[in-house]
């Protein structure tokens, strides 16, 4: 969707990340996804009368790791109660951090170089889950709801960005980068599809140079695709209203992926008043400088730094903004996102060409659950064989596939498969045969039609049983056509 000319979008994102603790924030029930309903519950997370919360130290540690990775200040913090009635919130208040959050004033750098401010990243407890039955099956108009409290009390960090994002694409890049950072800290698994990472978007529009417009908060964004679609839809909705002389009402809106639109969630006459006050059942959280330093020292390298490392190794710059090599940069992004950078760097250390290693890793290793088990030395050997022209690209990919499946020695695998790149004289004979067999196509190639090149490469592959090097075939053809 395109935003109308003459308007700017302003987006702030709230990312809720479930922390990867073994237990819940305030009790010893398991923090587990997908259990039978109401099996991970106790007096505390059911909010039974008389129960009291006790803070999970590991959750604090994870929150501090996330804050550190986002360049936040880590300070003395206090838990507060946010009071409102809702059936999936067992105490009818949520324990959260209000005026004194543990992490504040940080930032996140997008891969494109834009710096997005992080206002705060505070700790809070998750709610249970309700499912609606009867009627339409959605909240409004259902006959009733069933509540499962397994998720109630799961530790969350809510990360609030400044209103610094100006497009749906940047918002998407922010969430993707946030996810990588969360995973890198070990604090959260960042799985949007399981709801362990959830995003709400505050969207407003304005004319360039004007003050911020009235914002709407969009909920139910369950994927990056939803995020992009919802932001574009909402921005256009607001623009249409403003152009029609109407006013935007500040409200919470629900995104429907099926309908492709947002709709108002709350009745307007009921103004929210959360009556925050300090949670008297908990004491303040005041990490010592030693603890803060220990967390910082223990933090692994973050995606941004890891990309820079790869960029240095390959001679590419780390981020798109100052690279101009977007395709290759996507490969770097992918390699880091898929946690393959350590493998790539080890292969480079073992003698592989860095650029080839990044590209092969991005294309051949992503999505394989066995990539982590790949021996970097073997990987490097395949890449070197390819570099030396002893394996074609197709053959190299097949060897890598075999390595992923069964492991082994790349040279032996190539030999077993009968791979040896055709030497130049044989290849030349093959190309001459093809030209003779397809004169019309050769004329088109000579005339500059680039598509025909692919036809000849394909035919050469077929004739040679995959042993022809596609690049060498192309070079021979071009030379014979007088193109180079």
């Amino acid at each position, binding site marked *: 969707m395109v935003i109308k000319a003459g308007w700017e979008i302003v987006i702030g994102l709230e990312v809720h990340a479930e922390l990867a603790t073994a237990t819940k924030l305030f009790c010893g029930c398991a923090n587990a996804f997908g259990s039978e309903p109401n099996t991970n519950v106790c*007096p505390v997370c*059911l*909010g*039974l*009368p*008389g*129960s*009291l*919360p*006790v*803070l999970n130290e590991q959750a604090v540690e994870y929150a501090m790791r996330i804050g550190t990775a986002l360049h936040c200040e880590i300070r003395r913090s206090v838990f507060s*109660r946010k*009071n409102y*009635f809702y*059936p999936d919130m*067992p*105490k*009818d*208040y949520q324990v959260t951090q209000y005026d004194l959050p543990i992490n504040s004033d940080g930032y996140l750098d997008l891969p494109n170089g834009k710096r997005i401010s992080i206002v705060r990243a505070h700790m809070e407890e998750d709610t249970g889950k309700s499912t609606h039955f009867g009627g339409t099956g959605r909240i409004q108009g259902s*006959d*009733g*709801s069933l*509540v499962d409290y397994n998720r109630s009390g799961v530790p969350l960090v809510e990360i609030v960005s400044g209103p610094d994002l100006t497009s749906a694409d940047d918002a998407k890049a922010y969430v993707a980068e946030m996810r990588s950072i969360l995973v890198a800290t070990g604090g959260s698994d960042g799985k949007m599809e399981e709801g362990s990472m959830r995003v709400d978007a505050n969207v407003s529009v304005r004319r360039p140079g004007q003050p911020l417009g009235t914002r709407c908060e969009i909920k139910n964004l369950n994927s990056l695709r939803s995020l992009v679609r919802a932001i574009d839809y909402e921005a256009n909705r607001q623009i249409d209203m403003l152009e029609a002389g109407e006013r935007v009402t500040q409200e919470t809106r629900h995104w429907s992926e099926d309908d492709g639109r947002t709709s108002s969630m709350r009745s307007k006459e009921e103004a929210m*008043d959360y*009556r*925050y*006050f300090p949670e*008297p*059942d*908990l*004491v303040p959280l005041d990490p010592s400088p030693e603890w803060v330093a220990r967390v910082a020292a223990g933090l692994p390298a973050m995606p941004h730094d890891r990309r820079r490392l790869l960029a240095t190794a390959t001679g590419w710059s780390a981020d798109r903004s100052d690279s101009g090599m977007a395709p290759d940069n996507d490969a770097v992004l992918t390699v880091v996102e898929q946690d393959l950078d350590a493998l790539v760097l080890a292969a480079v250390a073992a003698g592989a060409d860095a650029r080839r290693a990044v590209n092969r890793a991005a294309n051949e290793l992503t999505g394989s659950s066995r990539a982590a088990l790949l021996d970097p030395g073997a990987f490097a050997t395949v890449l070197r064989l390819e570099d030396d022209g002893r394996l074609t690209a197709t053959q190299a990919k097949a060897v890598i596939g075999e390595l992923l499946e069964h492991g082994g020695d790349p040279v032996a695998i190539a030999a077993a498969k009968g791979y040896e790149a055709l030497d130049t004289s044989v290849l030349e004979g093959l190309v001459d045969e093809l030209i003779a067999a397809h004169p019309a196509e050769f004329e088109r190639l000579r005339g500059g039609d680039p598509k025909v090149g692919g036809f000849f490469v394909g035919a050469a592959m077929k004739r040679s049983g995959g042993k022809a090097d596609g690049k060498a075939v192309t070079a021979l053809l071009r030379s014979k056509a007088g193109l180079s």
Partner: protein
Amino acid sequence: MGASHAVHVGPGSSETAVSIADDVRAGRRSAQAVLALHRTRIDTAEAEVHAFNLVLTDQAAEAAARVDETVASGRDPGPLAGVPIALKDNMCTRGLATTCSSRILEGWRPPYDATVVSRLAAAGAVIVGKTNLDEFAMGSSTENSAFGPTRNPHDLERVPGGSSGGSAAAVAAGFAAASLGSDTGGSIRQPASLCGLVGVKPTYGAVSRYGLIAFASSLDQIGPFAHTVEDAALVLEVIAGHDPMDSTSIESPAPSLVSAVQQGHADGVHGLRIGIVTELSGEGISADVLARVEVAANRLRDAGATVDHVSVPSTVLGLSAYYLIAPAEASSNLARFDGVRFGLRMVPEGSANVQDMMAATRAAGFGAEVKRRIMLGTYALSAGYYDAYYGQAQKVRTLIINDFQRAYQSFDVLLTPTSPTTAFAFGAKTADPMTMYINDVCTIPSNLSGDPAISVPCGVGDDGLPVGVQLLGPALSEALLFRCAAVIEKGN
């Protein structure tokens, strides 16, 4: 004693927990025999007193039998072996109705025990019943119970005080040797005073609140009622101590309180400096109560202390601060009673949404005083009023703490009345909420400061009804307070 209307309390009805435990531990009496004696008294007089919401029969019999088996097998049955104890019905007991004297908890059986319940059981105590209270501990007379009031065993026409009125009456009537109450603004000390018992509000954090159904979390503390200072010390030693289930529980080792009592009885209080709090010993306190404070002062002086007056000026703001802070916390603590997970549910006719169900459930399940305080607390926290009410009250709390600390630079222990009057008649103070609230004026400051306090009997007033005096000390000064209380008790 208040003459004709009092429950007849027979021989041995005020026997002490210490003597029962000694006898049972030594095998001189069986826990089952002790229980039978108390059950007889309950059967005789409970219909008049109405101390209990629930009398435990089978569970108590089993507990007593276990103690007797333990004694017979030569193992240690615990410091409270065979001692019949009553529990305020806002402490969770697994599988047994726990009501807070409210309709809203109708049918609820907690799936867990409060920490104090486990500790009592481990110490060999026999829990005989769950006692009546002002609904959710909000009140000073036990008239706010959804199940009807408790009567003062000293005069059945009068209130036992509150909110722990049932726990006080149970001990005063001889139904239990000791009991537990909870004290948010005086709910142990005031009924102790009105029923002629020792009542203790320990230092905030000294006794675990896990399983105590919260009224105001930053003020609530569990403590004992007993006939004697020594009994109260014995029970407090058992229930105090750090609990990992309560983040506000403190690590203090419970010092030997029983030996502090014995020290008071034997050696007095030589060299201690006692201060009578000027602001809490004048206007609004009846003359016969003030006279008993003088008697207590004299007893302490005779036992070697120096006594003087001390000003703790901001205590006059305590009542107002309390009636902002406690309802504010309560409004949040009582939100969970919404008809979703446990207890009462009311679905209004013609409406099928959850919001209306919650509002109807809460309207039907809560009594008038609970609703009043929820309304007050919600208002005090609401947008635009937080700073003027809740925020200001928190600052007054600081002022009170500072004033007490200043006083404790010159005095070891402070002395005040516990309640402005002796036990009053039913209905005497129910017309206007402020009239009832003022009962707590002397007891509230130590809840706000978190410091310990004891009410100890010191004779009777002009009407022949019991009068208690209150001793206050800095945090964790329980041993000192028990020592002074022992001196006052010795003069009775």
